[in-house]
């Protein structure tokens, strides 16, 4: 029989399905969203349905999940985001928290502590670790400042 061709929306029907998982918590399982904005080592990127398959290493930063009901922002410590050919975006991160759950004062205090560590570090490894901490807290601070 003949039927009218339906609107071509790509192999998957135009939906972006997200799996956002941590080792100790499944934050999102097969959640349909419209767009995901992330901060990757190669640069910031926004992913829509049927985005070209990509592998991105995530920097500490904010992931924004945009759907019809609004946007949900999480701050992640790092991990990988892999966009698959079937329009499924898998994000494995180590730690993630909603921005509103993070205490700005604790961040400021920890940032000061890490900066002191960088100055007083006695060996390369301690110094490197402290530098990473400083980057993390600075990113966290600007993310918290941006949301308000």
């Amino acid at each position, binding site marked *: 029989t003949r039927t009218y061709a339906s609107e071509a929306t790509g192999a998957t029907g135009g939906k972006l399905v997200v*799996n956002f*998982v*941590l*080792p*100790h*918590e*499944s934050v999102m*399982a097969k959640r349909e969203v419209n767009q995901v904005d992330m901060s990757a*080592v*190669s640069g910031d990127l926004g992913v829509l349905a049927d985005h*070209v*398959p*990509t*592998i*991105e*290493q995530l920097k500490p930063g904010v992931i924004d999940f945009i759907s019809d009901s609004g946007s949900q922002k999480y701050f992640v410590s790092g*991990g*990988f985001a*892999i966009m*698959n*050919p*079937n329009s*499924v975006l*898998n994000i*494995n991160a*180590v730690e993630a928290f909603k921005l509103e759950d993070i205490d700005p004062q604790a961040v400021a205090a920890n940032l000061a502590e890490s900066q002191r560590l960088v100055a007083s570090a006695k060996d390369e490894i301690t110094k490197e670790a402290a530098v990473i901490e400083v980057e993390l807290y600075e990113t966290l601070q600007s993310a918290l400042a941006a949301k308000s």
Partner: protein
Amino acid sequence: MATLKEIQMRLKSVTNISKITASMKMIASTKTTRAQRSMNVARVYGKTSSELATQAEVQKAEAANELLITVSSDKGLCGGIHSSLSRQSRKYLAEHPEASLVVLGDKAKVQLQRSYPGNIKCTFSQIGSSIPTFDETCVIASTILNDKDISFDNAKLMYNRFVSAIAFETDAIEFYPISQILEAPNFKAYEYQEDVLENLNEFLFANSMHWALVEGHAAEMAAKRTAMENATKNAGDMISRLTLQYNRGRQAVITNELIDIITGASAL
């Protein structure tokens, strides 16, 4: 026929043992509930991480360098957990005698050191006292990846899969290093930057290992609960049997004393 005193001592010791096994069962029960919750999350985490290899349709290389990682623990009294792992590991090593072996946990280490000491590249202990954290997993994963004696094209994480509260099955999680994924037929669809590949490899490895460790821990807690439950039940059966024996003995003694008294009295 044992004396009343002996039966009494046995009764006392079996009662103590049954109290111990009953409390171990309670503890294992609570640990199982918590471990199961962590396991469900870790499974999702590990399976999501393995999706890339599945989507890329990685195949095992022809003459692959194999690595077997046996995910066991240090603690005993958990039924067939460790012997099942050792048995399956030995079976695998018989088929792949050149494979490198890494053992997590003292129990399997002892058993595998006896049969395949030459294959063991490194072992880890202090495993299994609590639910594995991602931090611990990362330490193990990076130690293995940084070991210059270990290079592999294919790794199998042999662990105990949690089937139900009373059943487990020894299974293997396949891990393909990034060098193999790059060769996979569907991988050319993916865009990526070269410099993240090494980090990706370490991350995917840690993720799969985390799944194996957490699920293995849950299977072990459940098996420990079952083992302790059986032990308590058996101890209870033994206590009933011994009590009956004790009472029969006691009655026999009383009967003999009565007979003595009566024959003594009738002699007067």
